[in-house]
């Protein structure tokens, strides 16, 4: 495996979108399209088969929810970066995907040739976030007033500061200037925040399951 080289797998049911992504990836010299699927069933096989560093996954598949695939892939390996394909980057879909294990998103209406830039960004450790999503994450991951509600992985002060600036509309580079760090570090913070969101949502799920007696003690 060459350093900086990415193996990409794509799951997307819309042929023109799939075609545009595939074309863009194949054109890029630092990445390779290793596999693709157009529905949940074949997508599962693809994910379980492995052999990729990046999974680009649509959520609205004809036979089910793409979130399932993201979760399986995320549980399978921590090394994989997962990106969701979204139409509007609306907070609900994006947050749902991040909780499942996604670390970034691609907008379907953007010229898909640019998707390789987003893939490179995420491989180098950064994640995108919109102000609305930053605000909602902030609301969810704020330090709890009661110790018993303590999050499994609370946000650090620096991460809270980052989220706060981003929710108020500052771009990564503006936020970086304010915090006297690099824009890349801001992007890395966001990725960490996403990871914590996922860990906490898992912990919540485990807690709920155990309190319902599914897991026993």
């Amino acid at each position, binding site marked *: 495996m060459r350093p900086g080289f990415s193996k990409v797998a794509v799951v997307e049911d*819309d042929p*023109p*979108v799939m*075609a*545009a992504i595939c074309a863009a990836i194949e054109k890029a010299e630092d990445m390779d399209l290793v596999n693709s699927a157009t529905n949940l069933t074949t997508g599962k096989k693809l994910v379980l088969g492995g052999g990729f560093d990046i999974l680009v996954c649509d959520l*609205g598949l004809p036979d089910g929810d793409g979130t399932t695939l993201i979760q399986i892939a995320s549980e399978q390996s921590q090394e994989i970066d997962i990106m969701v394909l979204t*139409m*509007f*980057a*609306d*907070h*609900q*879909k994006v947050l749902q995907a991040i909780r499942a294990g996604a670390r970034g998103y691609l907008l*379907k*209406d*953007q*010229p*898909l040739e640019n998707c390789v830039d987003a893939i490179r960004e995420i491989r180098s450790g950064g994640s995108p976030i*919109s*102000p*609305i999503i*930053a*605000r*909602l994450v902030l609301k969810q991951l704020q330090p709890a007033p009661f110790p018993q509600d303590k999050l499994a992985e609370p946000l650090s002060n620096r991460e809270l500061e980052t989220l706060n600036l981003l*929710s*108020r*509309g*500052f*771009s990564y580079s*503006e936020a970086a200037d304010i915090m006297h760090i690099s824009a890349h570090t801001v992007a890395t913070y966001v990725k960490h925040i996403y990871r914590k969101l996922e860990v906490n949502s898992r912990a919540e799920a485990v807690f709920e399951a155990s309190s319902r007696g599914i897991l026993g003690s």
Partner: protein
Amino acid sequence: MVQETPSGQIVHFTEADFSFSQNNPTLDDWERRALPALWLSDEARKLQSSHISVSAKVDFDGETLKDRTIAIFTENNREQVIVSVNDIPIFRNFVDNDHSVMGWNHPYLIPLSDKLLKEGDNFITVEARSSRDHALGIGSIAIGDLEPLNAQFERQYFFRIDAPKTINWIMLLLSLFVFIMWLARRQELELLWLSLTGLVWFVRNYHFFSLSAPIDLQLFQYVTYYSIYFAVAVTLAFCAEFLKLPQRKIIIVAMLSIGVLLSLSRLFLIFANQTDMASSLMTVILFGSFLLILAHHAVRNKSTPAWLLLLLLTAAALTGIHDIGRIPNINWWNGIGFHFQPYIGFLLFLIFMLSLAKRFLNALSLVEETNVYLEKRVTEATDALAASQHAQRQMEVERALETERERLMREMHDGIGSNLVTALAVARQRNYPSATITTLQKAISDLKITVDSLAPIDGDVVTLIANLRHRMEHELQQAGIASIWKVEECEPLVWMDAGHSLHLLRLLQEALSNILQHANAGSIILSCHSQARDSKEGILISIIDDGVGFTAQEKSTSKGLDFMYQRAAILKGALTISNEKGGGTAVRLWLAQNRQG
């Protein structure tokens, strides 16, 4: 013995001639003895058959008292008294041969007419009579000026008769009152013991101030004597109950049993013709042992009431010893000249009652405080309930909104959105005219803004505008326009719902579109900060570009600007669009913090 007082002279006789002869005593029968002679019963019983009696005769010189207002004062005579001067009876404290009279505690002042006095030797005879079972004795005899004797008499009468009578009757009434209270609250045993304390002490003290027995004298005597044991027992029972001593039931039963035991022992001693000194001592022992229990309790529980009761009872015990010393056949001392006992019962009763009253008042205050506290709790609970109901309704509304939003989003994702995205992808692949692609992009942008307007951001206008900038950043960059972001923290606008959000986003989107299409600008400044207008809180949102500005004609014919004004009106905001001095256009929108009023 002659006593000189400021108001006159008094002669106290320290000795007298005594005779036990019940007929006319001859000269030979008289025998000189010291006064007072309080215990003559045993002697008289030996000499006499039915009732017992004794006469005491004192001599004085009539010359010294001539032409003065004089009187005879005598006290401590048991029980009936006849006073004669020169063999002429001038006073008796009984009618006929009424043996129920008890004169022992009564002082007598007998004014004397000087006509009765002879020149030279005169004599006063005090004859005391008693029934066989009673005590017989001659107390003090004095003659002198009326004024000082009257003063002495009144003092003695007050402390021996008037005051004990008054307070004991008050005590009886209060006991009755307490007893009625106990009937209403049977569980408060202190009330029962208190009323019994008052009652038994009344019975005990009756003989101090009454001249005659209300019932058969013999029976009355027994009742009077034996009641002291029970007076002490119920007093101690009250203390035990009041202090809630551990094992107080046992203590109370023991006290009452000892009372019965002492009664029996006294009965036995009387039959055996012994003095009841032993019973008196045992009463002191009973009292003392209770004091020990009390002291133990006081030390152990550091109880202030217990210490105070201990002090009180000790004082009562000391006065008891004082009174025992005054009993005729013991006769250790005369003490203060009268018995403490009729006061002690009342004092104990009064202090007990006040302690109990204080405790009840405290309990009442506690109840009031508790009521206030409970009312407060109820108010709090009601408020909390109302708040939680409000929150629940709020949640239900939010959930309904969320469900509706999800439904709309699904429609957009699965239907129109998906089709638009596919169309755009196809158009791009096949290199359709740019107008087609732009239109499709614009349609998708509009949808995105609609989606954003639905986000639950709680009226946070800054986030809303920030997201618009985020959405349009790419387009602005492509047009070579730098965006300068100047926002401050602003209070959320609580009235800003999804519909209002959409109007705001559309308005700002239109402004940005105008810049992109017409302004030929190099940069824009996006700002948002709090600003009060006409003393109303609000926020000012502005977009200022450095482009070419616009002409008046453009302004009047532009449909887009019309829409912007319409949306501002719906938001009840103030919109101004103006050319800047240094070139470029400024769009300013002011929104009120609070839309009411």
